[in-house]
């Protein structure tokens, strides 16, 4: 079957073949039986000796025509693409920040599984203690317009943070004192007080380098308000150029003069990358299931059903949780509220939550067992966690224990069934998270039920995203599910800072950028400084564990589940050799080192 079908199909027109691929296995077989007039079969077959195929070992038979050489991707662009200025508020994919490096590229590339920083535009990087970082650029890099890529472009990109302090890149300069170039080597001297190597590395691995010539003009045109500049062009250094962008799709065409042909060993396998723009998850998921999309970053409930029903769909991990954990949605508590200012209550609440139920239902099984730690116990961060302490000093779902803790803290159940102390009832509290973030909505429903069950009055409320975000930043909330730093070169330190930092504490009603629960502690800032400036791995782990210990005693917030940094799902209908646990030449991601698989995919069809 593998031998015959591709050949039989190859002479059909692409549209017919494409249509056939959308049919189900049965439907397609029926079509094929009808003969040539209705198009070829779209059936799946055993993959034979192909690797990196569906979790059920299946692979498709490949598309024919133009579609055979194109990669269909989804999950990054939802509205019509209007602006490709990577510094704008909401730029279109792939100019949006920290996405796949198809058009723009970064200096370093982060690998979410190993935690390594791989070379990108910079061929190498060297860290000197916690004082400086030096980078040496690759040779022969050119921009899409043919001009030469130089150190000036790199310097200017970061310089934009000074030119327009409203840009996100401006925060680079709080960590860095000076950035100079010497030939093709760039020297970065860190801020001597903060010494935060991780935060600088994270910026180097996330900031797309832009052409100085283009953005100098933009800064001039807009009076240094670079974020307000609008453009429909994206001149980068990447393996693809922006070919077309309209209401329905974004099309990238292969850059035949790509500088990285030698570095990555080849040009990308596909001639075009096409991102259709869908209205909703469902549309994309259906197309993905049918093999009309090759790879995507969309939430699919119960993705295992796809390969159980014979589709050549795969994920990086073959077993649950299928995705490599990379972020940690946090349950934030406003510690200025009476009741929630008591660490014993917060710990009791952490005991009250049925984490397994959240992982199983709200997260479709895509989360592993949650540990009582701010370090993700997997992938890049695994080396920093002290599992024994997380187990012994932490918490697990135990409703009885939660009630005992409340009673020990002096709370007694009132006539209404809710705990109270000195007339201060625990609740009623509102649990907020943005409407439409379905897995978080469902998780909070479960948490509210769990709280009610132990005698704490709680109910969910799902405002719009903007409202939720404002309420959380201004401290105008009781409890919330919100995100903190996902795995990147600066985590877990960054996450501790996000959750616990007492630096620049602001009053309720003013915008905070970290520690939204307004948790106050005298020692945490010192601990954070020590951890950020740790000169070697051993002292870093010690400092991180000290922070984690404090976190477990005080419980300023707690994680509800783990989530992948990016959902990485592929359908081996047309391409094989996807990165999986057994075929781990590239990490399961799009951003950072996730660009590697575009050079390694193998076309299945003839």
């Amino acid at each position, binding site marked *: 079957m593998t031998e015959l079908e591709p050949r039989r199909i190859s002479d059909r027109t692409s549209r017919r073949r494409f249509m056939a691929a959308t049919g189900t296995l049965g439907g397609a077989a029926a079509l094929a039986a009808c003969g040539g007039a209705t198009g070829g079969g779209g059936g799946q077959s055993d993959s034979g000796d192909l690797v990196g195929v569906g979790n059920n070992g299946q692979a498709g038979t490949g598309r024919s025509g133009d579609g055979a050489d194109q990669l269909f991707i989804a999950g990054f662009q939802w509205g019509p693409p209007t602006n490709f200025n990577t510094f704008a508020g909401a730029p279109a994919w792939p100019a949006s920040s920290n996405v796949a490096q198809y058009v723009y590229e970064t200096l370093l590339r982060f690998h979410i599984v190993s935690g390594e920083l791989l070379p990108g535009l910079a061929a190498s990087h060297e860290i000197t203690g916690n004082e400086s970082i030096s980078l040496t650029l690759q040779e022969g890099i050119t921009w899409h317009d043919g001009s030469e890529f130089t150190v000036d472009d790199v310097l200017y990109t970061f310089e934009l943070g000074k030119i327009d302090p409203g840009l996100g890149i401006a925060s680079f300069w709080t960590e860095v004192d000076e950035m100079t170039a010497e030939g093709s080597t760039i020297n970065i001297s860190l801020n001597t007080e903060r010494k935060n190597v991780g935060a600088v590395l994270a910026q180097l691995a996330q900031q797309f380098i832009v052409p100085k010539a283009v953005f100098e003009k933009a800064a001039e045109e807009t009076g240094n308000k670079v974020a307000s500049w609008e453009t429909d062009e994206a001149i980068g250094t990447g393996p693809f150029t922006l070919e077309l962008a309209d209401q329905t799709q974004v099309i990238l065409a292969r850059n035949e003069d790509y500088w990285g042909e030698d570095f990555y060993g080849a040009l990308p396998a596909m001639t075009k990358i096409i991102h259709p723009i869908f209205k909703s998850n469902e549309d994309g998921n259906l197309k993905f299931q049918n093999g009309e999309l090759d790879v995507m970053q969309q939430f699919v*409930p*119960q993705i295992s059903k796809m390969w159980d029903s014979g589709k050549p769909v795969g994920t990086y991990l073959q077993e649950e949780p299928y995705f490599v954990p990379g972020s940690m949605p946090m349950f934030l508590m406003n510690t200025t509220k009476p009741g929630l200012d008591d660490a014993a209550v917060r710990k009791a609440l952490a005991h009250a939550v049925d984490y397994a139920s959240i992982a199983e239902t709200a997260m479709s099984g895509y989360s592993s067992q949650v540990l009582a730690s701010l370090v993700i116990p997997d992938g890049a961060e695994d080396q920093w966690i002290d599992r024994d302490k997380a187990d012994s000093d932490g918490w697990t779902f135990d409703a009885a224990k939660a009630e005992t803790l409340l009673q020990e803290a002096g709370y007694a159940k009132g006539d209404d069934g809710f705990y109270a102390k000195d007339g201060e009832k625990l609740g009623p509290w509102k649990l907020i998270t943005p409407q439409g973030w379905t897995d978080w909505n*469902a998780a909070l429903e479960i948490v509210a039920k769990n709280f009610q069950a132990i005698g704490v009055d709680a109910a969910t409320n799902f405002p719009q995203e903007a409202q939720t975000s404002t309420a959380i930043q201004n401290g105008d909330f009781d409890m919330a599910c919100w995100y903190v730093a996902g795995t990147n070169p600066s985590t877990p330190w960054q996450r501790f800072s996000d959750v616990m930092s007492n630096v620049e504490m602001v009053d309720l009603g003013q915008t905070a950028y970290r520690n939204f629960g307004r948790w106050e502690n005298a020692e945490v800032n010192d601990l954070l400084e020590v951890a950020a400036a740790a000169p070697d791995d051993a002292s870093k782990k010690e400092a991180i564990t000290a922070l984690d210990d404090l976190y477990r005693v005080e419980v300023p917030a707690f994680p509800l589940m783990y989530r992948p940094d990016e959902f990485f799902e592929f359908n081996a209908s047309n391409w094989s050799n996807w990165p999986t646990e057994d075929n781990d030449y590239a990490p399961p991601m799009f951003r950072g080192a996730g660009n590697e698989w575009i050079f390694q995919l193998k076309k299945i069809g003839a």
Partner: protein
Amino acid sequence: MSTVNSSMAEETAAPRANTLRSFNFSARFWVSLVLVAFVIAMGLFGLVYPTGPGEKVGSLYDAPGNGLLLGTDNFGHDVLAVLMAGTRTSLIIGLVAGTVATTIGVSVGLLAGYVGGWFEELLMGVTNVVLAIPSIVVLILISMSLPESTIWSLAIVIGITSWPWTARAVRAQASSVATREHIDVARLSGARLPGILLKDVLPYILSYAVMAFVLQVAGAILAEAALSMLGLGPSGANSLGTQLHWALAFQAVASGAWWAFLPPTIVLTLVSFGFLLLQASLDEVFNPRLRRGKRKQMKQAAARRAEEARSLAQHRTVDASTVSPPDRTRAGGPS
């Protein structure tokens, strides 16, 4: 005017073998009654059903089987238990919202229709403005701005956005009643405005108000479902709408979990169909002109009544009764 009174006198004068029969309930009425009763029974049965709607009995979208008639929803709850709790909530919301809407609508309509003049213009002006704004938009805006969403707040919000059409219809009826003679009599005998409205106007449009109420209940249940499906439903409570909301959010349709979205859809269909049918058949009961079909039955009834009237007349003639001949022929049937 006199015809109303005299035919009423006829009704009371003519003895009936079966009072129920005189209502002429149609088959439609009984079908709708069964539907509504079934839905109400289902809501009530949830109170004695062993599994609670918040009890986790399985995993995400377990298929029906293993003692679970309708499988589990996205939370691992028993769909049947959630469905029964949801039906109850939806009915409560429907009844409360229907009561609120009908009360406002009838009050405004009665006042406007009876008082008339600039007051009528004012009230109807307001009503028309409210009527012109799509109520679903108002509903969504109010629901979004509520700090907390409970089933009661939702019911009241639905109620206060759906009264205008009732008000308009009631006004039309009330202004026609207001011109009748007995109102003049009431006014001359010194009755006050509230007394006249309640005792002399309202009874004449009560049948219409009841039907409007039934329609409002059905409408409110659907409005709740629409709001809840958008995620603006009552928090912490199950309703048919929230059930659909979660089914949509967890892509039950795409993953083939029909048991998560079909049951609430079917119950919603049944309950709104049942109430609408009930309204239509009540309409026929209250307004004989609208009775359709069953010509044969009508003729039979007419013949029966004519027979009754004749025997009565004969009887009264013997007793020297005072019933006048023209009225006797009127009693012949519902024309």
